[in-house]
């Protein structure tokens, strides 16, 4: 186990460590969470502008090319600077060592390096917007991205994503090593909390898939800057090859964004329902099944491209099969609630909200996975609805659930439950108003990524925009609650929720190196209602 930890002199204020190259995994975790949340606010503001433009069918509020730059930056920030860093870098770093009884991550300096790469990458991405925004969507398909007028912005966009991707690869190596090699003696793989299984599956995906994206983007960079023709049909290149390389990463990226959240939900439900997690092994194996299947379904994003028929069938079957391990998780979660004694704390409300919304996103996903169904709905608002149900209704609801659940552990203070509930109900109502009508818009004929649309779609778009406004407002009670509680909240005990996983056995917040003395051995992290405990 590592013992290398920066020590602080008493004269230095405690908060300064959050602004330094600190190698404590808990500091790095919080650095990731706070940084990514700031990017979330920027991405959200961009979404607000996009929704404002779409309240009318004419492209009247924003210049159409600026509009394209805005949704491109919105999508890129939300994926690469909010959800991925928050769920892996944030929760992964904070929780994995605490849950397996380790003093820190396996490679603490690499860990700090990975975090500090996200800041210049983020600044580079924001800068790209001001030199002429990349306006080709987060997919950056050539030849549009090669022929674009905004070459400088597109190049900065590519460099930023490569830097974020590198950070992601470093983090993945660190998580795999930590989970496999740094567990407290006596803790077997099947004694680990399910969040650690989810992080293992996530890290394998990130490690195998991210280098392919980096390769594709470097080739694209050469096409833009140096006149090569890897993807440029004007010189004999093939733009469809880029799509394969891009989605080979970007479909698994979806699981990188959701698997850790599945893990968070599997931690929260048992604690607040006072029941053991139902089907521990099935949930652990289902994460690994999603990891394997997730690598083999990328071309379902390309059913309307130049894809051979047999491949479309292969990817249909593979994609629909993802519903099986996902269904195992959902049914296990509901069985966990069954006959429990549910405490409706803010974290539990968001976790229950997550289950209800993710089901909707998952069912739309099964429909999209079917090649013939996709022929109609591909690149329409139906897809926009679907991925916001899984990434916002899924990942973001899960992040909020996790933030409330571990807030006492991270800060040593309690949050305000009333404002947490207000935050939940505003978010739940705003979310559904904003994204549910988009299913209908897409089925009826509205394409995505447009600033102007057929006037028959106006009323549904106005409802979506009202939902977006409520969503924007919903972050205010959250922010005020978090900032006030962090500085002035009631002091939290080591284990305010009477939870059984290992991170709750230490102080809140945990000391440097996590435990004074040896961490205890916990081999049954979910033994609620079983007489051996309590």
């Amino acid at each position, binding site marked *: 186990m590592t013992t290398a930890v920066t020590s602080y002199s008493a004269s230095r204020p405690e908060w300064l460590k959050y602004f330094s190259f600190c190698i404590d995994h808990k500091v790095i975790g919080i650095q990731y969470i706070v940084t990514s949340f700031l990017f979330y606010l920027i991405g959200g503001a961009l979404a607000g502008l996009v929704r404002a433009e779409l309240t009318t069918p004419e492209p009247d509020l924003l210049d159409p090319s600026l509009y394209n730059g805005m949704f491109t930056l919105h999508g890129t920030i939300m994926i690469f600077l909010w959800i991925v860093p928050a769920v892996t870098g944030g929760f992964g770093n904070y929780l994995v060592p605490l849950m397996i009884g380790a003093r820190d991550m396996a490679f603490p300096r690499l860990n700090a390096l990975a975090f500090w790469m996200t800041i210049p990458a983020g600044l580079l991405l924001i800068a790209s917007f001001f030199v002429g925004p990349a306006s080709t969507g987060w997919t950056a398909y050539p030849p549009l991205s090669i022929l674009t007028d905004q070459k400088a912005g597109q190049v900065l966009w590519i460099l930023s994503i490569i830097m974020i991707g590198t950070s992601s690869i470093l983090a993945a190596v660190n998580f795999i090593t930590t989970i496999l090699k740094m567990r407290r003696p006596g803790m077997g793989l099947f004694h680990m909390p399910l969040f650690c299984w989810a992080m293992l599956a996530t890290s394998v995906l990130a490690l195998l898939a991210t280098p392919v994206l980096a390769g594709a983007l470097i080739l694209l960079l050469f096409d833009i800057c140096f006149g090569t023709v890897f993807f440029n049909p004007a010189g004999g290149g093939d733009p469809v090859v880029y799509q394969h390389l891009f989605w080979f990463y970007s479909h698994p990226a979806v699981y990188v964004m959701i698997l850790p959240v599945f893990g968070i939900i599997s931690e929260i439900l048992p604690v607040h329902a006072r029941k053991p997690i139902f089907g521990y092994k099935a949930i652990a194996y289902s994460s690994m099944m999603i990891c394997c299947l997730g690598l083999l379904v990328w071309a379902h994003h390309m059913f309307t491209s130049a894809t051979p028929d047999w491949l479309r069938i292969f990817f249909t079957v593979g994609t629909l099969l993802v519903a099986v391990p996902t269904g195992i998780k959902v049914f296990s979660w509901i069985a966990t609630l069954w006959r429990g004694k549910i405490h409706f704390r803010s974290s539990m409300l968001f976790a229950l909200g997550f289950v209800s919304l993710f089901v909707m996103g998952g069912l739309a996903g*099964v429909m999209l996975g079917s090649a*013939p169904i996709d022929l109609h709905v591909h690149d329409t608002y139906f897809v926009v609805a679907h991925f916001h149900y899984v990434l916002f209704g899924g990942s973001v609801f899960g992040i909020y659930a996790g933030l409330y659940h571990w807030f006492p552990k991270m800060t040593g203070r309690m949050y305000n439950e009333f404002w947490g509930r207000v935050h939940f109900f505003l978010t739940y109502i705003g979310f559904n108003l904003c994204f549910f009508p988009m299913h209908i818009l897409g089925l009826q004929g509205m394409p995505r990524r447009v600033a102007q649309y057929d006037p028959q779609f106006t009323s549904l778009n106005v409802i979506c925009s009202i939902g977006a406004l409520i969503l924007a407002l919903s972050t205010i009670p959250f922010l005020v609650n978090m900032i006030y509680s962090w500085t002035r909240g009631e002091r939290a005990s080591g284990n305010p929720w009477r939870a059984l996983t290992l991170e709750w056995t230490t102080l809140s917040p945990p000391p440097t190196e996590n435990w004074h003395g040896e961490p205890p051995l916990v081999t049954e992290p979910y033994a609620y209602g079983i007489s051996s405990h309590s």
Partner: protein
Amino acid sequence: MKAQRIVSIVVLVGLIISAAVWYGINNHLLPEAAGLEAEAYDRLFNTMVGIAFGVFLLIEGLLVFAILVFQRRPGDEEDGPGIGENLRLEILWTAIPIVTVLWLSIYSTLVYNRMVGKEPLTIAHHHAHPHTTYVAMTEGEEGVTEVDVTAMQFAWIFTYPGTEVTSGELHVPLGKKVRLNMQAMDVIHAFWVPELRLKQDAIPGMTTHLEFTPTRLGTFNIVCTELCGAYHGGMRAEMVVDTPADYQKWLAEQAVAQKQGKAIAIKPGEEFFASIPHHVPAHIHHVINEELVR
């Protein structure tokens, strides 16, 4: 007590299945179909929507039930029962989804093969072409109306092989198989008519194909669905389904008009460009003029 419980479960499952079937038939989520492929699509779509709605009701129902019934009573600090597994239940909720998705995969494959012309849609009208594939079509098939489609920023251009006709509007005859041979001049575009339920990318450097048989007279929107630049949202055109007689008449009129050198309007792109001329690079006007106003 036990019998009562079984009866109520059977009744609830029956209600969910009835609601799923009803919604599958009556969802009205899609615009009215206008092609043979769309009719095959709608049967699959309604089946999947019905199943999805049933699963949705089941899971959300269980969730709401759990939330209402399994609340902690005030002051109760006890844990719930320590039950963490039930092998029979777990096998059940693994096996049923496997069977369902495999069945949906087979059904999807059958519908897919029909929609892309690998299998006949109606045996009476069309003979089967088991050897043709989506990307490699045979030429000059009898009874098939071929149209060459050129996509460019931000317009669609339709030319009719064997005639002089070039148009910004796609005219097709009712009840006849239409084959589009699509090319893109600059970036990737995608051809979509919502009422046909069909979409295909037009990709620079290659020719892609789309086949359909219109079954309803009228005018339908052609929408570009692949992000193609600033005015992607304005890249629309119209598809007019004529009776075969009207279609022939239109072709003849167009041929005459174009010999006399009359310009062809592209709709609604022309209005769109006129409304925001300062945004559109000059070369695009130039390209459109060259292509259309010959």
